């Protein structure tokens, strides 16, 4: 092993770049072995639980007839519309509010610090339990929301999950409630990274309030905002628990999204290939986002 470098010095013309040597980089024998040993567990996890299942899944959903069946299915069409609405409204409203609120939480007041501790509670609360609570709040006249509506305003509240749009809206609100704190914390961290002198300089130039946000803070956070929005879009596409527990996909499957529909096909209707096809049908949306995002994450300093 140690002889290779001697051979190199002696015969520089025959520089065979074998695979193992190109992997080795500048490492000496013993260190190289250790480096490989440190990496092996992760590589094993990746190959057994990511690479193989992904290939397996693509193979499962590779039959064209599945997609013909899917695209002709009115439930699937409804689901696609729901998913797009869920992503477009849920992600964007959540990210924008989180960005604004992160500015609010940057204020140096003791009670705002205390409020932040309470504000992040939805994020810490376990999803199943939180969404079950949401479901019960909206269950109809016995729920907290309709009870409050009648107590405070004398209005008879709707039966939320008997209507597609109310159900979809409930899902989106629950989703925003659960995940807005997380992104707010990320944006707070991003804002803390902006040097104070930039704000001071902006203040000297007379930029305060909304103008400072538009011309100073937002341009500095724009890259972080974009990366977070893309990432959140992908994760939201895979969000299963919100819809499954809040509206339950009802009434009659009209508020399902791709993640829950795929699950129903695979495990309730015992048609796993069709379930996989539902997920794969999201790839035309997913792949451009992933390419854009990976490019951003590789080049920029933004890191999540």
């Amino acid at each position: 092993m140690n002889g290779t470098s001697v051979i190199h010095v002696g015969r520089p013309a025959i520089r065979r770049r074998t695979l193992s040597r190109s992997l080795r980089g500048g490492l000496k024998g013993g260190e190289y072995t250790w480096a490989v040993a440190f990496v092996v567990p992760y590589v094993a996890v990746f190959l057994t639980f990511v690479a193989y299942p992904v290939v397996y899944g693509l193979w499962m959903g590779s039959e064209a007839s599945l997609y013909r069946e899917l695209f002709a299915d009115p439930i699937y069409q409804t689901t696609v519309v729901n998913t797009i609405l869920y992503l477009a409204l849920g992600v964007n409203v959540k990210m924008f509010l989180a960005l604004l609120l992160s500015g609010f939480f940057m204020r140096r007041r003791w009670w705002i610090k205390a409020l932040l501790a309470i504000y992040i509670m939805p994020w810490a609360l376990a999803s199943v339990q939180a969404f079950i609570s949401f479901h019960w709040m909206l269950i109809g006249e016995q729920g907290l929301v309709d009870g409050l509506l009648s107590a405070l305003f004398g209005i008879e509240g709707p039966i939320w999950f008997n209507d597609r749009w109310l159900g979809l809206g409930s899902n989106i609100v629950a989703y925003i409630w659960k995940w807005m704190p997380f992104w707010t914390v990320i944006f707070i961290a991003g804002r803390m990274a902006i040097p104070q002198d930039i704000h001071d300089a902006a203040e000297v130039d007379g930029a305060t309030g909304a103008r400072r946000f538009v011309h100073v803070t937002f341009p500095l956070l724009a890259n972080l905002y974009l990366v977070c929005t893309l990432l959140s879009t992908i994760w939201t596409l895979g969000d299963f628990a919100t819809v499954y527990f809040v509206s339950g996909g009802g009434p009659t499957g009209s508020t399902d999204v791709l993640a829950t529909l795929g699950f129903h096909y695979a495990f309730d209707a015992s048609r796993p290939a069709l379930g996989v096809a539902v997920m794969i049908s999201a790839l035309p949306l997913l792949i451009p986002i992933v390419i854009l995002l990976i490019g951003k994450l590789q080049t920029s300093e933004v890191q999540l």
Partner: protein
Amino acid sequence: VTNVPAPGRLARRRRARRRVLTEASSVMLGVVLLIWSLTPVYNMLLVALDPEEGEIEFAGNLWTPEPSLEGFRAAVMQDARYLEYFWYQYGNSLYIGLATTLLTVLVGSMASFAVGRMHLAKASLLTNAALLTYVIPASFLIVPLYRVMHGYGLLDDLWAVIAAQVTFAIPFAILILRQYARLIPLDLDDAARLDGATVVQLYLRIYLPLMAPALAVIAGYSLLLSWNDYIYQFVLLSSQRNMTVSVMQAALFVDADARWNAMMAAAIIYAALPIVILYALGRYIATALARGCT
């Protein structure tokens, strides 16, 4: 003479008025956020403290007329249908959570140590693999992973869930650790090497201690991830023996005759752990995230 300072006084008064206005509107925003954040939590408490065993009846009161700890008693004493094995199931959830956390920290820190500190060529391949996993929507892999786990003979095994959680937690770990490790000068490693430190010593004595804040964040993240999970636990585990709290609560949820107060009490007990952890690690998480984003 009295007219001269007037513009200044006017401006000062205008500024003071604006300050009061800002303060008032931020207090209002604070109240709105408080209500927004706590209403579902409050609802959990309301149901849990209801003395009735049967259905919830909310008559518009902001508080139950006779709050009772009966629901909590039934949950803690496992004295309600579905809750007979509550603490056993809690143990399963905890086992999955702790194993996921430990393995994520271990495997993630080892990989990022090799990539960041050992000049391993083609290390970017590894980071790309992590990025690729990071951007797969978790529930999209559920069907193939179920089949694959079946092939591995891991169905209805807590370790199947642990493996799935570790798989989805590690990318975050590698990315955060890679970023955080840039703060630790490589000269430190070289100096230790000159003193005759082996690779393992570098990892154990220098890398791990200096990375402690980032490791705490990753531990918190992976525990929350597994504590929040439902779909993988539901699909990969089937026997009563391996049931977790999340799966039990979801099963109870669809049963109209369940004891809601006991169930919500159990939900609160389950939900308390991540909240405690989050607040305990809060400062670490904030610093590490702030550094990770710069």
